Structures are given as structure tokens and as C-alpha cells.
């Protein structure tokens, strides 16, 4: 295998980790975002219990994304992280608040309302910061030599705020559809009523981000809109349209699992769109994946580990989800 190919494989593995993170922790964070709307008592407890056994594993994909970037593309890690300092620190602190709330709300009934608030605040901050991070990366980063060369507010633009809000809508939709699938009764009815509105919100956000993206960089414009590439790229909005229709139909038919998977489909298409914009850069317009790549020996050594471990991880993660399959009752996992 050549070094060029190996680097492409690593870009694929990290993209895979990011995709898995976004969809898996996406519904965890989405439940956090929606949490204040749920009735105190059994509804909130059920919503929390539906993700308590799996959130930690879901979050680990974020560590794989970050750690993998350091290992396979150290230059990209070294430029992107300082460039996005403020949103990343905010994300980390948000994840701290969100993560401890899972335990603390049970340990301290007298202050449960506070930890519930922390759960929501942490989820909202982490989600918004992740959206901002994505937008800031997409709009471009000032680089000189092997380092970030912008100020500490460079990330803040209308576009990055838009992607922040877009991700809030997206994660909330994922969380909502997860609860439709995993719960019943009042909580499920409540989520049905939210899902349609959140779906419309997400579609509007996707349209806004998609419309703005080609004008961020000339490269994006050509990648998306120049003939004949446009024949291929046009399939993405078309597929988005089809899945949206299927999504709303499944909602009106009161299907339980289908809305969640259609929502995942919408996310998947957005991420494919992101890949079309960026490929083959890791820092858009500045640094390609090959320029940022770690040496062959480093990537090869890790590839052996990833090739063995990722299937094993997927297997036991799948098993853990299987153990907790079915509806979450109000009396725990019986």
C-alpha cells in the first residue's frame, strides 16, 4: 500500500469516527436540549434512562476523532485546535456538565433541578460549540507556516453561528426521534408533536447552510456547481428531498423506529455534503490530507490496530445496545 492510499484510508477512518460520533452522541445531546420540556418525574427519568447505559461509549467516538487526528494528521490537529480555541474549550466544559449530570441527579434529589439544568446547559453549549467549530473550519482558517496565525475571535462569523444553530436543531431532532422509538405514552406523544417542527427547522437550516457554503470559498463553488460535477453533486439535495418526504410520511403514520433512521439519513447526507466541500483538504483551502499526514510508519502502525479493534468495538457496542433493546419502561430496564 502506498503512503498516498494509506493517508486516504486514515481520512476515511477519522471521517467515520466523526460520523459515528455525530449520530450517536447527537441523540444524547438532543435529549439534553429537549430536557426542560419534559415533565419533571417519570418522563425526565425515562428520557435519561434511555441513554444512561450508552452515552459514555457514544462520547468515546469524539476522543477517537480527536486522538486519531493527532496521530494521523498531527499538523492539522496542531493548527485546527488553537484556531478553534474558544468553541472547543466551551464544548469540553459543556461535556463536563452534561456527563456528570447522569450520575449527580440521582445522588442529590434535593438539587436535582440544578443538575437537570446543568444537563441541558451542558448539552446546549456542547452542541452549539460543535456546530460553530464545523462552520469555522468550513469558512477557513488563517495559517502561516505550520501554525495558526489568526486571532482568538476569528471563528466568530454569522456563518459559524448559523452552523451552531443548525446543529442544535439537528441534534434536537435526533434526540426527539430516539425517544419516539424508545418510549411510549405521554413522552412519546410529546416527541411526536415536536418532531415535525424540528424536522422543518432542520431542513431550513440545511438549506441556509447549503446556500451559503458555495460562496465561502471559490473552490466550494466549483466543486458544487461547475458542470459536469454538478450532475453528481445535485444528487445530494435530491436525496435530501426524498428522505425528508419519507421522514414526514413516517411521522404522520406514527411509525416508531423509522423517523429516527430517516433523521440519521438527513444527517448522513449533510456530512456527505461536507465531504464534497472539503475533499481533499483537511484545512479547507490551505492544507491537504497528504500535507498534514503523519509518516507512513505511524499511520501503518495505527492501521493495524484500527483494522482489528474497530470491528471488535462495533461488535461489543452493538451487543450493549442489544442488551438494552426495546422500550424503556418507567420502572427501569425490566
Amino acid at each position, binding site marked *: 500500500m502506498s503512503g498516498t492510499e494509506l493517508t486516504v484510508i486514515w481520512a476515511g477512518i477519522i471521517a467515520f469516527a466523526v460520523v459515528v460520533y455525530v449520530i450517536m452522541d447527537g441523540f444524547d445531546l438532543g435529549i439534553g436540549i429537549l430536557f426542560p420540556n419534559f415533565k419533571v418525574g417519570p418522563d425526565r427519568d425515562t428520557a435519561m434512562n434511555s441513554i444512561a447505559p450508552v452515552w459514555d461509549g457514544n462520547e468515546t467516538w469524539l476522543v477517537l476523532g480527536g486522538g486519531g487526528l*493527532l496521530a494521523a494528521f498531527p499538523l492539522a490537529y496542531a493548527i485546527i485546535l488553537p484556531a478553534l480555541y*474558544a468553541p472547543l474549550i466551551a464544548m469540553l466544559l459543556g461535556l463536563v456538565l452534561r456527563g456528570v449530570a447522569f450520575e449527580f441527579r440521582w445522588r442529590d434529589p434535593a438539587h436535582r433541578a440544578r443538575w437537570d439544568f446543568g444537563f441541558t446547559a451542558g448539552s446546549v453549549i456542547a452542541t452549539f460549540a460543535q456546530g460553530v467549530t464545523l462552520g469555522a473550519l468550513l469558512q477557513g482558517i488563517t495559517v502561516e507556516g505550520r501554525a*495558526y496565525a489568526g486571532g482568538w475571535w476569528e471563528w466568530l462569523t454569522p456563518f459559524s453561528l448559523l452552523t451552531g444553530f443548525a446543529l442544535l436543531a439537528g441534534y434536537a431532532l435526533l434526540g426527539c426521534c430516539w425517544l419516539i422509538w424508545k418510549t411510549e405514552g405521554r413522552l412519546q406523544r410529546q416527541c411526536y408533536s415536536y418532531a415535525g417542527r424540528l424536522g422543518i427547522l432542520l431542513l431550513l437550516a440545511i438549506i441556509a447552510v447549503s446556500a451559503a457554503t458555495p460562496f465561502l470559498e471559490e473552490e466550494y463553488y466549483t466543486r458544487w456547481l461547475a458542470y459536469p460535477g454538478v450532475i453528481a453533486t445535485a444528487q445530494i439535495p435530491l436525496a435530501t428531498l426524498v428522505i425528508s418526504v419519507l421522514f414526514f410520511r413516517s411521522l404522520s403514520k406514527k411509525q416508531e423506529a423509522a423517523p429516527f433512521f430517516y433523521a440519521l439519513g438527513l444527517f448522513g447526507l449533510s456530512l456527505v455534503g461536507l465531504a464534497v466541500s472539503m475533499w481533499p483538504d483537511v484545512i479547507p483551502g490551505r492544507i491537504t490530507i497528504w500535507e498534514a499526514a*503523519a509518516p507512513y510508519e505511524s499511520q501503518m502502525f495505527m492501521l493495524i490496530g484500527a483494522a482489528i479493534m474497530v470491528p471488535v468495538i462495533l461488535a461489543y457496542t452493538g451487543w450493549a445496545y442489544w442488551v438494552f433493546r426495546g422500550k424503556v419502561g418507567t420502572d427501569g430496564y425490566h
Partner: protein
Amino acid sequence: MMENDLAINLARIQFAFTVSFHFLFPAFTIGIASYLAVLEGLWLKTDNGVYANLYRYWLKIFSIVFAMGVVSGIVMSYQFGTNWSVFSDKAGPVIGPLMAYEVLTAFFLEAGFLGVMLFGINKVGRKLHFVATLAVAIGTFISAFWILSVNSWMQTPVGFAINDVGQYVPAAGWWDIVWNPSFPYRLVHTVLAAYLTTAFAVGAVGAWHLLKDKTNPGARKMFSMAMWMAAIVAPTQIFMGDLHGLNTLEHQPAKVMAMEGHYESHPDGAPLILFGIPNSKEKRIDYAIEIPNASSLILKHDMNAPLAGLDTIPDEDEPPVGIVFWAFRIMVGLGFAMLGIGMWSLLARSRKKLYDWPLLHRAAVVMGPSGFIAVLAGWVTTEVGRQPFTIYGLLRTSESAAPLDAPAVAASLLAFVVVYFIVFGAGIVYIFKLAAKTPEAHEPTPDDAPIRTAGITPAAAVLEGDHEEGAAT
């Protein structure tokens, strides 16, 4: 330049603050996870309910510590890039893959099986649940393996070349890099430290409850198990710490000079300075209480062996002596105090008054936090002793930092301090509250959270009825 220095110093404070908080939690989870595996294994083997009840008792505490370890750990994995980006760019090709292996082989294993461990006993049965507990315990160990390999490589870098853009890249085999010279010693020393930390925390909780009721079977069992650990592991740790020190002398002599407070070289045998006040201006130890030639005896196994001092090290390569000197003494002092408790417990056992010697129990309560303080002191010794380098002898800390403005780092540091004190402060209070509850024959489920009857205290439903006799013994 002044501005730049300030930004770097703030980044150092932030890293020290976040890593110190973080390190407390894995030091505890490595130990409790193994303890829980032992308890559940003994329960499966003997069917004695006291083990199941202790399992449930400590599982509640474990789940809090583990959550705090996870969230504070994610901060660390990103902080290498946000604050030490030049280091990340340069060292990434060598240390990055080791950290990726940590994620792939340890983090996922722990996280994947944690859900089943905490919530799944009624779903999967006792045997499979034991497998989940074992997986989590093994995961904590694998995690320690990789991250300490990374840390050790920064202390004793080998097997690398420097490429044309200034990156450290793997040149020898990965085996050499992973098993770099200080790694085996650091691994054993740190894992034993985690076990001792847990033993003294568990011992203190057991002793606290024995002081109130010396017949409580749970308290007796946990105290006895903890004291066996103290008696066996404390002397082993002192022996291993000595070997680790000799390894450090070979590869990082300046660190040992700072630990010993040897500003001057001693051609005819160096004294062991027990106490004193390092005076960095005059480069001497004031008010030193010392044992002549003892340092040469310990480090060289020869009373008259010459030992070089910091006068042989250029000033700009010298670690901060005061911090290293004091941190080392705190660690060693606590180590010997632990040994003392361990020996005392053997004496108590031989006199059949292990559960009936309030002074021993009070001493064990006082020693409860000793492990946490000792691991932090040890960590400070080795990390500050590595200064002024991030990669020892090669890459300076001042040349490793990210190009950030001081106000940005100041703001993040402030945010970390506020959030960590509130969040982890609350977590530590909850741990104390749980530990203050008397271990009961039927470890209750939290009555305020009926939804979790099969949740956080998973053994509940399985145990009810089955093992009442056992639980009462």
C-alpha cells in the same frame, strides 16, 4: 515577549490544574475497578452475600468517580492540541499512535461494558455481568499502559529521528518506543500507587464504620481486605519506587539532583538530605538535616560513590528544585506512613484485634486521603522534574506551546477553575455522603429513584432472597 511568557505560564497552570484533577479519578478507578472485579469474583465463587453487598456499595461510588474521570479525561485529549500545538505537531507521529491505541483498546472497552456493569445484571445474568466488570477493570489497566508509555517516552525518548520539518518520527521499531527505558518502572509504580490509593480509601471507609459498629460484616470485610493490600503493596511499592529512582538517575540525573536537593557535586559520597529549605538564589539547602553519605549508599549502593550535583547542569536546563524537592518528600513520607499502617494491621491481625483497636481505625481514617496526596506529589515530582522540557533534553516547554493570546488562556483557565470546583467539588461531596452510609446486609437501592431499582445498584433484584444468610455473616 513578556506577553508570550504570560500566555505560556497560564497554559502551564491550566494543564497542571486540569491534569491534577483528572489524575485523581483514574488513580481511584483503576483501583476500585479491580476491587469490584475481585468482589464479584469472590461472590460468584463463594456465594457469600457480603461480597455482593460490598460490590453494590462500592459500585455507587465507582460510577461517580468514573464519570468524573471520563469528562475530565476528554479535556486532556483535546488540550494537547488547544494549548500545546507545537508539541503536538512535533511529537504527534510518535505519541499520537500510542494514544490512538489507548482509545481503541481501552476507552471503548471501558465505556462499552460500563453500561452493562452499572445497569445490566438483570439483563445478562451473573456470569456475563462478571465478564463486563472484568472488561472494565482490564480497560482501566490498558488505559494506564498506553498513557504511561506516552508519558515515559516524553521522559526517556528513544527510537525516533527528526524529519526535515522538525517532527519527531518513528525510526526504530514501535516495540522500542512503547517499551522506552523508564516505562516498565513508571507503569508498575503508578499502577501500584493506584492500588494503594484505593486500599487506603476503602480502608478508611471500613475503619470509619468499625469505629461506630465493630460487628458490621461489610465494614469488617472491607477493612480487612484493604489492610491486606496495605501490608503487601506498601513494601512492594517502596521497593519498586527505589528501582524507579535508580532508573531516573540513569536517564534523567537532573531530576534526581532536584529530588535529593543536591545543588553541589559530592566527589566523596553524597549526604541524604531529610529536610531543609531549598534556596534557589544561593543554590543551597538551608537548615538541612542530613545523613552523611546515605544518598550515595541508596543511589549507588556505595557510601563513598561520587554523585554529581546541579552545578554540573547548565542553569537553563535545571528543573525547579523547590517543588520537586518538597513533592518528593511528601510522597516518600506518605509511603512510609502507609507501610507503618500495613505493619500495624499485621500486628493487630496476629493479636486478633484487627476489628477491635480503635486507635488503628482512627489512624486508618486519617490516612484515607494519603494515596491521593501521594499520587499527586509523585506526579508533580516526575513532571516538574522533567522541566524545562516537554520531551526531555530535546524540546523545551517554552517552545511547545500554542500561539494563543494571554487573555484567551486566562479566560479558559478561569472557566476551568470555576466549573471544576463546582462540578468535581459536588462529586466529591456525593462520594463522602455515600461512604458515610453504613454498609448494610441488604445494600439498599436509592429510595428516591425507584426507576433505578435495577439500575445503579444492579445486584439488588438478583440478590433479594437468594443470599440472606450469607449477607448476615
